[in-house]
């Protein structure tokens, strides 16, 4: 296959940036999208040009480091996968693929396709934990938890913090991320002692970081690589309303 990557290039946070088109030959449909960028980067280095900066680590959909707007969708055209799991068979020979960084005021571009997602870290630092004295681990069944709650908490905990929810939301809202993080504790007994401060503090930090609020369009749920459900936003809303009013 021959494809053209139309990539956002921006040398640093304060430069304006623009799109540059790169034709790439010798692409096979079994290559991953990232292998194509690797191939292009090798060529750019040989030509003495700056390679394209993009975040990636595990390249198997578990770390959440990668996050690129590929061909008009967060993490590319497939559902339930990260950018590193996109393969060239999802595109057609001769296609021009637009490649952009996440766009949100709270996620400023650092360079090219890499954005600063430390706003998520600050949200986590404001309540995404439980305070316990670490000792030896307790007996596995000391605290019984129903299968339903355990499953739902696990689904929420599957969030890898990639930011696709923010990137695909017209309001750049982080409610799916925060909803998942609030839910994973709200569903379990270990989360109860700090539940009230947790939801109040995490939502306050989310608002301060400049994320928008939710219009319930559902774009986040559709684009989330871990298919985190809107139910978790509903649960966070309930927790927040309860914590605020009572």
């Amino acid at each position, binding site marked *: 296959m021959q494809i053209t990557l*139309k990539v956002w290039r921006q040398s640093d946070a304060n430069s304006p940036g623009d*799109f540059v088109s790169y034709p790439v030959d010798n692409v096979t449909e079994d290559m991953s999208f990232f292998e194509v960028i690797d191939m292009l980067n090798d060529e750019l280095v040989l030509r003495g040009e700056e390679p394209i900066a993009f975040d990636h680590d595990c390249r198997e959909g578990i770390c959440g480091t990668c996050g690129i*707007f590929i*061909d*008009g*969708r967060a993490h590319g055209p497939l559902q339930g996968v990260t950018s590193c799991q996109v393969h060239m068979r999802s595109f057609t020979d001769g296609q021009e693929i*637009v490649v*952009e960084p996440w*766009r*949100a*005021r*709270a*996620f400023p571009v650092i360079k090219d396709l890499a954005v600063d997602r430390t706003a998520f870290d600050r949200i986590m630092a404001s309540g995404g934990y439980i305070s316990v004295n670490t000792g030896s681990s307790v007996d596995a069944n000391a605290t019984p938890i129903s299968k339903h709650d355990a499953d739902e908490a696990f689904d929420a905990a599957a969030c890898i913090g990639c930011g696709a929810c923010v990137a*695909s*939301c*017209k*309001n*750049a*809202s982080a*409610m799916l991320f925060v909803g998942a993080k609030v839910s994973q504790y709200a569903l379990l007994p270990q989360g109860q002692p700090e539940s009230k401060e947790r939801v109040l503090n995490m*939502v*306050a930090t*989310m*608002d301060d970081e*400049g*994320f*928008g*609020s*939710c*219009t*319930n*369009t*559902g*774009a986040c749920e*559709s*684009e989330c690589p871990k298919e985190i*459900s*809107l*139910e978790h*936003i*509903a*649960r*966070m*809303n*309930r*927790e*927040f*309303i309860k914590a*605020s*009013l009572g």
Partner: protein
Amino acid sequence: MSWFKSFLNSSIGKKTVMATTGLLLCLYLVVHLGGNLLLYAGPDVFNGYVKNLTAFKPLIRVIEVVLVIIFGAHIVNGLRLAIENKKAGGTSYQLNRKNENSTPSSRTMAITGSVLLLFLIVHLATIWYNFQIEHSGGQFFNIITGSDVGLGNMFIAVLYGVAMVLMGFHLKHGFQSAFQTFGIRFNRHGKLIEMVSILFWLIIPAGFLSIVIYFGFMGGAN
């Protein structure tokens, strides 16, 4: 009261206000359409109905004040959210296939809402003003159907028609969205909410629209 203020200024607080006021406005639509359908019964019945309402003047005034508060909160908060959310979005994408992940009605709440606001201003400045301030010599039916500020005026009829279609669009997303905002869970109650939603986004706007079409475009008053 500081907790209340910080609740109202939080993202979820603002959403809760939108959802509460939005659903109350939906309730008002039911009452309003009920009265309007009497137009089909002819001038005597309709004029009599409006005159009877006048007998409850103090009550009507209280309801009006409540409505102003509800509408005011919905509009001010809605426009505030629209501005804040626009700012949060930052630079737009060169290519964004939004239709793959969300419905047009959910993405255009501020636009459909703004047209409704325009309609509301015209509606109050003409019909409400004539009914409540001028009293119109009891000829309420004629005001509604006439060519002065009523549906006999092509501009008014078109504006009203467009507004009712867009209200359906606003509520197609808005009604069910309000329940999600309250944290009433989709999966468990989704089917019921969806069914009731049809009443608000389809049947009620269609009821209002039928009046616009009958009296505005089919000469129903003659």
